[in-house]
């Protein structure tokens, strides 16, 4: 039996197919027509069950069918599958940052998510790397080569960009600016992690986890070892595929007996 997990994110669309284990995974750019992208992705495939997560989940599920699950839950399920002792999940994606605390059994206990803007997200890194004229892959290496410390105070993508411009105009080299930007976003992520009260093991997933400098800074600031899965971008789709495989109806579920009430 093939179960599919589809993570329709703001920057990437990820598909994970599962049989007994992970059978296949695909990562594509979301582009301007995510629905068509998803249709193309699914066209050639035969599968028994599909669960969709990510920003576009409602759009895609209303057009193509399939249950939906929030990316907060799918990341939790995916991380727990890869690392059964995982208790904290950091997911920094295209347009937001989420931190989720899990019980030993994998239930979500608490989560934090940044508000509306792109501060502290992958988009922030992307915009800033463009300003410094490096591609997103080389941004981390540039920062790691910094030889002095400067600070960026603003986390707002718009304000930070003007801070960067003023640092450039003062002749500060781009490696130091890149490092300052990484520091700023790492501070934002770690304050969210602290707020929630992180517990070992901490798994860092999502596209921004591909950035080595960011992983190192988050680990240093939290003074805790951080686990980055070999393919951090597929964790959400993996979680969705696992939910599809388990056949659990997470959305609009009718589970009267098992549902705890705060007050009966």
């Amino acid at each position: 039996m093939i179960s599919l997990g589809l993570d329709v994110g703001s920057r990437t669309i990820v598909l994970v197919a599962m049989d007994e284990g992970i059978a296949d995974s695909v990562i594509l750019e979301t582009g301007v027509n995510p629905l068509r992208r998803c249709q193309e992705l699914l066209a050639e495939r035969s599968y028994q069950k599909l669960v969709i997560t990510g920003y576009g989940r409602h759009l895609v599920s209303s057009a193509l069918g399939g249950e939906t699950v929030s990316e907060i839950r799918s990341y939790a399920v995916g991380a727990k599958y890869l690392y059964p002792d995982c208790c904290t999940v950091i997911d920094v994606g295209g347009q937001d940052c989420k931190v989720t605390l899990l019980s030993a059994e994998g239930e979500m206990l608490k989560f934090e998510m940044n508000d509306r803007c792109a501060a502290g997200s992958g988009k922030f890194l992307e915009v800033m790397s463009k300003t410094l004229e490096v591609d997103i892959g080389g941004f981390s290496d540039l920062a790691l080569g910094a030889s002095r410390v400067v600070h960026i105070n603003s986390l707002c993508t718009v304000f930070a960009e003007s801070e960067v411009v003023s640092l450039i105009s003062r002749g500060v080299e781009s490696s130091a600016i890149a490092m300052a930007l990484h520091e700023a976003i790492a501070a934002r992520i770690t304050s969210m992690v602290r707020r929630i009260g992180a517990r070992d093991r901490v798994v860092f997933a999502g596209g921004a986890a591909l950035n080595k400098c960011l992983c190192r800074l988050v680990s240093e600031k939290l003074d805790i070892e951080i686990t980055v899965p070999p393919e951090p971008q597929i964790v959400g789709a993996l979680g969705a595929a696992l939910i599809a495989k388990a056949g659990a109806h997470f959305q609009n579920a009718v589970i009267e007996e098992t549902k705890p009430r705060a007050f009966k």
Partner: protein
Amino acid sequence: MTTTDNRQMWEELGIDLKKHDMLMNALPPIYKEIYLSQKSRPKGMGFFDFVVGDIHGIRVQELRQHAKNGTIVVATYCVFVPDEIILAAEAIPVGLCAGAQFSVPIAEEVLPRNTCALIKSSFGFKLGRICPYVQTSHLIVGETTCDGKKKMFEILSESHPVYVMEVPNKKTQLSRELWRGEVKSFKDVIEKKTGNKITADKLAKATKLVNDRRRALQRLYKARQSNPVPISGKDALLVTQVSFYDDVSRCIQQVNALCDELEKRIADGKGVFPSNAPRILISGSPMAIPNWKLHHILETAGAVVVCEESCTGTRMFSDLVPETGGTLEEQIKAIADRYIQIHCACFTPNEERLDDILRLAREYKVDGIVHYNLQFCHTYANEAVKVERALAKEGIPLLRVETDYSDEDAGQLRTRIDAFLEMIRR
């Protein structure tokens, strides 16, 4: 009344017709999607659909008619302004809405952007001349429940008669005395504005009337304690919102008629959501018409909102003014003492609000609480820290949401709410 009559009236009121048309054209599709798409709505909501369907028409026409006959229309923004005083002077209180994104960019031409949406929306309605209620009113009564509003009223007073009541920030004896003085001064202001003397008899009658509206709304909220719930959170919120500006006697009649129907539904075990739908209490900032954003996201995600601990909810009507009568002085004191009991975050300390939230959570058998904070409302945002701690102690799940009237964060909100519901459903 026909559309042509409305247009003529708006023109006479000095409404910016071009902008106003845009606003009026935007509302019906939104209302259709959010309200009319709901299943098995109570028949009694028909009245409220009608009122919203002609939101700037028939009620404004009524108010204008009264104004032409010499009645004073007093516009208010806050549950601290005592309607009893206004009604006792044979004037008409009208709660202004200030819940639309439409007027926010207009306000931002003058006010700082990092001001809460409620303030910007209300200011923009006046500045842009798109609210016929403001235009019809003879006086706007403001209050000092937040610094942003306080300063906005100063600027607003350049284009409309404004009177500001001072709401103290503590509940000490000294503060209570200040507030009693404020209510008394307000009486003098209204008497002067209307030319009508407020007598003990008139005030007792007005008190009874406003209490009857509170009783009707209490009855509505009581019905929401049932499971399955006989009315959606969206519909109940709309009833509360409309009660701010509708004729008081008609409002009482309509709400009670609706409650008759809801109580019948409860007796028959009929509901609008399955009995296992997560029951949510929303606590925090007020939601003025047409701000239905959070309720809509929650209820399309499978949850049901069963109570609002807010100024467009329990804070508006949960306490009555004692109807003991007595002299004018005694009655004014009773009114002042009732209003200062409102647990607004402008007070320090405000521990009673925490007690209220816990009590309501129990009474409405909620599965989780969403703390709703209008962005840049610092009092509620900071008080949320204490709410979070109090709820953690009781093991009640909480989701904190900070947002405004725009739709730009709808996707993020939906993600949080989906995850929150997945968490409390587990």
